[in-house]
């Protein structure tokens, strides 16, 4: 007798049906109802296919054809953690908090104390967010009181080695009250030989005059799928600063929705995608200017080697109320291999008349004149190429003021480049 293998959306819905009475917070009526609603939404939509406009360049068949298990609940003690970047670090293994490996500042609450998040969990309409809502088990709840500077916190998600593909869905909820400040370094890693799906969702609420800096190092294992979404709102005078380094994983989507809801709010979304043979990475941003006098800046750089594929989709929506909007978006790709491919789709949708909005996209190779100039000064070709690649990424990284973040990012870039050296020269 053979066991029925459930794949795709059906697999996850099947899991939800089996698990729903045991999921964290199963006895809380509001959460059970929300999960049921999420399941309904996910059932209706399924995994997005390329026929869905927002997913035109990213094919999820690799994900939907696989079948995923729950991560084992066994506490694995042989897990090797990377070096911490900050004094406080919260560690999630396979989507579950490991308090024995974590330390966190007092204002942070861990969401497995699930009663604390009542009224805070939203249900976005996108199917991946619905899937997350249906199945999330853990995550951070960061509630920063007005006027407090909460410093820097690292959040590490790590997958453990497993013979069977596993899936987990972290749900992080961040709220900064008026004038609060917080910096998060989010690190995502996993073993090279394990296939897993990490489907994190961040809900971010930046209050008036508050400032949230959010740097993400996406260094998932080579076989991993990461389909992450961020939903952020920024109130008057507040700032949301996102930097994402997409370096790991086999199939990755970094989807960011930011809505500027109050006058003078600011959002920076920068990022770099460093892709090697066989990788696919997609950065998709939605910037919603809903209030007057707001500024947004986006700079994304993608470096592609081997047979890799990069996607950037960026939509800026300027609503009628959003006069004096200042929007800027730049997306550039550097193709280091003839087999690499980059797709870009910038989109401006403007309903206000007094706005300054610009966008640009370039795709190119390393500049032969620049390479020759460096080599004519005695610098060997590999070093010269590496200098030019770093220079290309510079613009996206230079906006990061925090030294901890900058160091972490720079060493990640370095690590990626050294790995390329192994493959090519």
């Amino acid at each position: 007798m053979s066991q029925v293998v459930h794949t795709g959306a059906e697999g996850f819905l099947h899991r939800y049906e089996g698990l729903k009475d045991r999921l964290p917070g199963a006895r809380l009526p509001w959460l059970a109802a929300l999960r049921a609603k999420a399941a309904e939404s996910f059932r209706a939509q399924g995994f997005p296919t390329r026929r869905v406009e927002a997913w035109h360049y990213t094919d999820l068949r690799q994900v939907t054809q696989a079948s995923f298990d729950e991560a084992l609940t066994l506490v694995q003690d042989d897990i090797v953690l990377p070096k911490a970047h900050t004094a406080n670090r919260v560690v999630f293994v396979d989507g579950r908090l490991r308090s024995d490996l974590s330390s966190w500042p007092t204002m942070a609450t861990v969401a497995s104390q699930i009663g604390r998040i009542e009224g805070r969990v939203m249900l976005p309409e996108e199917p991946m967010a619905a899937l997350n809502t249906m199945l999330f088990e853990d995550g951070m709840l960061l509630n920063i009181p007005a006027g407090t500077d909460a410093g820097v916190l690292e959040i590490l998600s790590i997958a453990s080695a497993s013979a069977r593909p596993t899936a987990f869905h972290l749900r992080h909820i961040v709220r900064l009250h008026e004038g609060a400040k917080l910096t998060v370094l989010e690190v995502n890693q996993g073993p090279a030989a394990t296939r897993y799906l990490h489907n994190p969702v961040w809900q971010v609420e930046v209050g008036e005059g508050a400032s949230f800096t959010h740097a993400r190092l996406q260094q998932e294992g080579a076989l991993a799928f990461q389909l992450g979404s961020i939903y952020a709102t920024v109130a008057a005078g507040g700032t949301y600063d996102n930097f994402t380094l997409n370096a790991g994983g086999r199939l990755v989507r970094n989807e960011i929705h930011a809505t500027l809801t109050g006058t003078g709010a600011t959002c920076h979304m920068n990022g770099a995608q460093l892709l090697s043979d066989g990788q696919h990475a997609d950065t998709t941003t939605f910037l919603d200017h809903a209030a007057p006098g707001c500024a947004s800046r986006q700079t994304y750089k993608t470096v592609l080697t081997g047979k890799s594929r990069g996607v950037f989709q960026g939509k800026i929506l300027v609503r009628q109320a959003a006069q004096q909007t200042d929007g800027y978006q730049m997306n550039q790709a550097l193709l280091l291999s003839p087999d690499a491919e980059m797709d870009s789709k910038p989109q401006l949708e403007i309903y206000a008349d007094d706005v300054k909005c610009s966008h640009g996209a370039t795709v190119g190779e390393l500049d032969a004149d620049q390479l020759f100039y460096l080599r004519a000064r005695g610098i060997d070709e590999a070093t010269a190429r590496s200098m030019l690649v770093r220079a290309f990424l510079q613009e996206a990284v230079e906006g990061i003021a925090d030294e901890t973040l900058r160091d972490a990012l720079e060493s990640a870039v370095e690590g990626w480049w050294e790995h390329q050296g192994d493959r090519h020269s």
Partner: protein
Amino acid sequence: MLRIEGLTAEVDGKEILKGIDLEVPTGEVHAIMGPNGSGKSTLSYVLAGRDGYEVTGGTATFDGVDLLGKAPEERAALGVFLAFQYPVELPGVGNANFLRTALNAVRRGRGESELDAMQFLKVARARMKELSMPEDMLKRGVNVGFSGGEKKRNEVLQMALLAPKLAILDETDSGLDIDALKIASDGVNALRGPDFSALVITHYQRLLTYIVPDRVHVLMAGRIVRSGGKELALELEASGYGAPQAA
């Protein structure tokens, strides 16, 4: 000694160098003059090893070593330095990082120890002072936003730091103001000695009053058509290149 024999080269299938014969003995400085488009920069690029400049015949050796089969960085390690007619901008590459990486690459090639950031800064500051360059140029991107003259000074700074055995200066004087011309020339003259040679490409006799050449060559339509002493430059200044003559 730089020895070029029967050198022919083409760019995009078009023959530009049509048989160059030239010898620059060690310790000498030679000037190359010639009309626009005659192939002066092409010759300098071929000697430095730029892609796309295809050598179709002849040889070029430096101290007996074949240059043409070598990568640009290997030529630099042998002591060949080209000051570009049009220095290249490198946005995102800091000038200090660039200069130190280049200097250390060349020092490694010479079997010398590498300089750390502090040691490098000391050396660079001293050279910049000699060239009257403001120190903040170290912090900027290589040649990014530099004026034409500043770019040329940056070329001279690189030459001064790398201390080549053979310097090819492609119109380094163009774009320099009168004071800078004097300073840049001093930079070249400081390197002069029994182990240093230079090929100075210029349109103007003025430079050659500061860097007095041992020989002057005229390049026209891909060939050296005349050679003479330093007085040839004066003569050309007075009478021009005239009609192409037979070699």
